[in-house]
């Protein structure tokens, strides 16, 4: 069974700061990882994904994430945040026979202060 954990429930930064949101996974086989964003009162929106190849993947709106097999991590980063990046961010993992079923972490609420 694949699991994913997001250790930080809340992260607060100032506009223009860089930010890293952490995600760690547990799974023994081939794994697929992705990040989603959820603004208040809305559904989730895809940011980026990783399966193989270059461990650093680029996503929308300047987000990127880096896969590390040794650390079992897939942390999300952004060099300079904007107030509109305030939202809840979910890391997701999939693998196994139903490899397109995503299992989500508990989410990290990012607050960007002016």
């Amino acid at each position: 069974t694949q699991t994913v954990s997001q250790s930080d429930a809340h992260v607060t930064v100032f506009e223009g700061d860089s930010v890293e949101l952490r995600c760690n996974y547990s799974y023994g086989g081939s794994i697929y990882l992705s990040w989603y964003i959820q603004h208040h009162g809305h559904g989730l929106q895809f940011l980026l994904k990783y399966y193989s190849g270059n461990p650093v993947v680029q996503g929308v709106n300047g987000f990127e994430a880096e896969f590390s097999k040794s650390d079992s991590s897939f942390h999300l980063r952004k060099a300079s945040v904007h107030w509109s990046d305030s939202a809840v961010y979910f890391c997701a993992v999939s693998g196994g026979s139903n490899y397109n079923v995503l299992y989500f972490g508990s989410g990290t609420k990012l607050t960007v202060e002016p």
Partner: protein
Amino acid sequence: DAGVTQTPRHEVAEKGQTIILKCEPVSGHNDLFWYRQTKIQGLELLSYFRSKSLMEDGGAFKDRFKAEMLNSSFSTLKIQPTEPKDSAVYLCASSLGGYTGQLYFGEGSKLTVL
């Protein structure tokens, strides 16, 4: 293309009632997912359809929850009978199928059971 459409956006039910939530996936998508979102449990998979066939039914939700795909462009989630603990946001998502790592989510249906 239209995104995933969920109706109703809000539903209030009395304990013991039957409610039906509806979902229209993105046109041409083969996979459809129902998730339940609560603050405490986070995002939980309720059901997963591949080309209208039920692939996973989210074990713990079998007894009072039933999802169906009546055709490739319409799905329902029936909760019968409702209980106050069913109060949550129910999210429908679709994807092309195969591994894309990218689910398209609807805005959700917020259910309150009194």
